[in-house]
């Protein structure tokens, strides 16, 4: 197992992404951040905090995509994770989805389906901490913390203070 990003790297990556988001969207007034649980939701919270410091308060929520997954039949049923849509809703907003790792793209496809049920955002953008490649769908991220080329038998482990007790991104060979 080797460490790719430490706590400082994660903080800097999020700060840069926050600046890029503000630049692209001309401020935060129309922005809504939606993190994908578990870790994406915490990254979303952190991004919203940084955005608030730089520009202005940004509504933040969480979007669980379990019910929209295309691999439900392949695994035992999973418990649902919290979905919290900010009171402003997403209608006409610039929605930024946040996840920890972008891999096959299937999670994001499910998230887009879920969003479509909730409303019609003006646009949907994607921010991820790590893009590890191996896409199975035509999906790309607008904001990337770090591109980490991986082979299929490696796995990426993102740890966050809120759930894992420390911040860090590690790469390890899959046993």
């Amino acid at each position: 197992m080797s460490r790719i990003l430490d706590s400082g790297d994660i903080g800097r990556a999020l700060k840069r992404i926050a600046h890029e988001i503000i630049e692209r969207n001309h401020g935060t007034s129309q922005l809504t951040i939606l993190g994908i649980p578990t870790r994406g939701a915490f990254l979303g919270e952190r991004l919203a905090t940084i955005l608030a410091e730089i520009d202005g308060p940004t509504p933040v929520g969480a979007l669980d995509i379990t019910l929209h997954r295309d691999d439900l039949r392949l695994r035992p049923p999973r418990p649902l994770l919290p979905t919290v849509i900010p009171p402003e809703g997403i209608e006409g907003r610039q929605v930024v989805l946040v996840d920890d790792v972008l891999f096959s793209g299937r999670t994001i496809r499910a998230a887009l389906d879920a969003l479509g049920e909730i409303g019609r955002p003006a646009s949907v953008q994607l921010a991820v901490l790590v893009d590890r490649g191996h896409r199975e769908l035509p999906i790309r991220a607008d904001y990337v913390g770090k591109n980490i080329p991986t082979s299929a038998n490696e796995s990426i482990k993102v740890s966050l203070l809120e759930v894992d007790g420390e911040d860090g991104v590690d790469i390890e060979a899959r046993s």
Partner: protein
Amino acid sequence: MKNHLLSANDLSREEAITILTTARELRRVSDGGQKKLPTLRGRAVVNLFFEDSTRTRISFESAAKRLSADVINFSAKGSSVSKGESLKDTAQTLQAMGADAVVIRHGASGAAQRLADSGWISASVINAGDGTHEHPTQALLDAFTIGEKFGLDTYDFTGLKVGIVGDILHSRVARSNVLLLKKLGAEVTVIAPPTLLPVGVELWGVQVSYDFDAALKELDVVMMLRIQSERMHDLFFPSAREYSRAYGLDVARLSTLKSKAIVMHPGPMNRGLEISAESADSLQSVVLAQVTNGVLVRMSVLYHLLAGAVNA
């Protein structure tokens, strides 16, 4: 979790809590605007109802449809059952049509178990009430409603006093509720005249009381049961009026309740018999919340039984 839900005892405490927690998340998803979910697309749910029902059938139908399952409603009236078709032939017909889940209500206790164990069908069987035996999804929705009203997010009901009042003898709702509520830690008292208590009730691990007025003051939850005249082939109490006077929840009794206590009823209510109209419509009554929550809990049950891999 097992493939079937036949009894509240099929669920461990943890599994029951998982179902209840999932139901709560489903509410958030639904409140967030996702009214229709693709989760069970392509799966067929058959509502096999040999007994009349309004809310349970509609509730299951609504739950299945909100998860995009196909729903086939079957009621004994107007079907080949009235021509004398057996449960076995009916079940095999459903199997041949490719049902993934069968929600069964039947007048005979154990009918759901028979269907599940028979080998006639491979579908998941959900018991929606079998005779005087069990009605597990009703117990789940009641527990969900209690958790909601008392703000018990972990569904730990330790110290909560629940009274189940009335026709315990014929009530599948009472049996399932006793099993589940005890599992979640509640203290359960059954309150009824001796004639409406089953033989062996002392083995249920609940307190038994014949005195509604004395028991009432202590209760946090008052669960009224319907007097099931259709199952009463004997004289269980001298007159409806006398029953109502001793065991009906009228205005006078309502006023002696703890201020935070809630009143539940699985429906359909016999207004004026086991519950007065004032009590049924009072602020402490959560009868309509029970109906709303029924859909969420049944969505959760269908999700856990059908969404995952087979035999995973």
